[in-house]
């Protein structure tokens, strides 16, 4: 059987074995390609097994009752294991957020693009620098130079719209996907 295969191969080959592309070269390349592709496909489950599992992904939305929040009060809720800051902003805070010259911002974004209703600011409470939790949720916390939040790790200052104003963080606090189910309930995620 093997002999027959070799014979067949040899007969069908050009005579000059030394140069040019031979059928054997093709077989080498085909085998290597097939093997590499196979290994890549086999590796994918090993890679994907480290991604968030179904039960982690399932925790990806949270409903929040806004009724008990007083004006000027900030609350923290947990979404996907991370804190989400909800700020019922006072008119002064809204004015401060809206009156900023966009050119003065590190990550320019108007306040209107970051809120659905000006009274309610909803942002992920994770510093965009290296993932620390900024301070400012309590009245006794330092709120930073712009009246928003202050990250104690490396000194990033956020304004009343959660935008980065000073410090090493490259981006504004992330606005999570959310919608108002009614006037006093918001669904985050």
């Amino acid at each position, binding site marked *: 059987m093997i002999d027959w295969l070799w014979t067949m191969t040899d007969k069908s080959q050009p005579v000059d074995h030394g140069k040019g592309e031979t059928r054997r070269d093709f077989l080498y390349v085909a085998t290597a390609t097939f093997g590499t592709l196979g290994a890549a496909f086999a590796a994918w489950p090993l*890679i994907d097994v*480290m*991604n*968030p*599992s179904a039960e*982690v992904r399932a925790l*990806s939305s949270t409903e929040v009752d806004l009724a008990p929040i007083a004006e000027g009060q900030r609350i*923290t809720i*947990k979404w*996907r*294991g*991370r*804190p989400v800051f909800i700020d019922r902003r006072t008119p002064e805070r809204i004015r401060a957020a809206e009156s900023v010259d966009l050119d003065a911002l590190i990550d320019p974004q108007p306040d209107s693009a970051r809120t659905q209703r000006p009274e309610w600011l909803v942002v992920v409470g*994770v510093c965009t*620098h*290296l*993932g*620390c*939790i900024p301070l400012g949720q309590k009245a006794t916390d330092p709120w930073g130079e712009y009246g928003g939040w202050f*990250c*104690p*790790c*490396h*000194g990033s200052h956020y304004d009343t719209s959660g935008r980065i104003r000073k410090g*090493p963080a*490259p981006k504004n606090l992330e606005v999570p996907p959310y919608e108002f189910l009614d006037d006093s309930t918001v669904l985050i995620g």
Partner: protein
Amino acid sequence: MSERTWNNRLIKWVDDRLPVFTILKNELIDYPTPKNLSYWWNFGSLAGVMLVIMTVTGIFLAMHYTPHVDLAFVSVERIMRDVNYGWLLRYIHLNGGSAFFLVVYIHLFRGLYYGSYKSPREVLWWLGLIILILMMATAFMGYVLPWGQMSFWAATVITSLFTAIPFVGETITTWLWGGFTVGNPTLNRFYSLHYLLPFVIFAVVFLHMLALHTSKSNNPLGIDVKGPQDTLPFHPYYTVKDLLGLGVLLAILMGFVFFAPNFFGEPENYIPADPFLTPAHIVPEWYFLPFYAILRAVPDIWFIPAKLAGLMAMAASLLILFALPWLDTSKVRSARFRPIYKQVFWILVVDCIVLGWAGANPPEGIYLIVGRIATAYYFFHFLILMPLLGFMERPHPLPESISEPVVKGAGAVAGGAAAEPMEKAR
């Protein structure tokens, strides 16, 4: 000498089929070692002993540890209070990490001073650097396991570095975490990898030894061995020298274990991890401080944001060492014969200590300025000074042989006769 046959018939029978005894004899007993090695050459074997100590204590700690966010902290406290000698194993493991890094850093700077990275030892040097990087990964993941506040926030800050990678950063970070934050999946995989990596280190250490025994040890003079008159058998001359060093190291290590077990620790790490409360001041373990300083020193560079630039600088500070055999243009290995490099070397040592000091403090005011200058100097040393010195420096004349400065008038020829009595005395 390797032709000698074994007297014991059982040993001979095994050795004929699996030459372990011959290999051990050649590599650990007869192995020709330059006869002028100083105590700075202890640190390789000391690092090997530390690896064994860390692995052994770690295996027994793992029998009592639970890798779950709700139980990890408690299980570590149980090890401390309830498990027989659990406190001892944990404190040895905890302080052993610091000892391991101390020994390895001295070993590395020994190599820098005596030019041990130069031809023909480039691959030996690379393997050492790979061991260092693997050690860093292992130590970082091990620090996360007790699930205290520093564990959690160190894990958050360091893994968040990967978000700086353009386009795929977020995806990679989520993949590393196995969730949307550092959480239970992260703790589990860190535990798995913390157990795995030491065995990978053992494998690379084996290659490191293979490369060492191929090119043989460098020595304080940095010149090649000319013949048997320049060497001594490894046993008993260096086994006994290494054992003395080991005694000193163990005395220091156990001194910390028994009298100041939390000297290198952070009190904050005895508070259980709280994902909603960041400690005011996050610092890594001392052995990461210089790298942490470099990470935070770099500002925005042109279009590269500071976060990415810092990550790149930190990676470069390690990767640059791989190119050192070619960045150093001097033909002379040992700093003993390089009058300028000898001084520049100590400036680099001071620079690394200054970086550590900057890394231990918040990145503002004077600390940030000092951190930036020290970072710039670090790269200046390797990228500018090392290549230039090879051309500008005039080295002192090298001795004829290793024996010559030791035995007066003993050159390459007479050295054999001079060294012979010692060989015979054995």
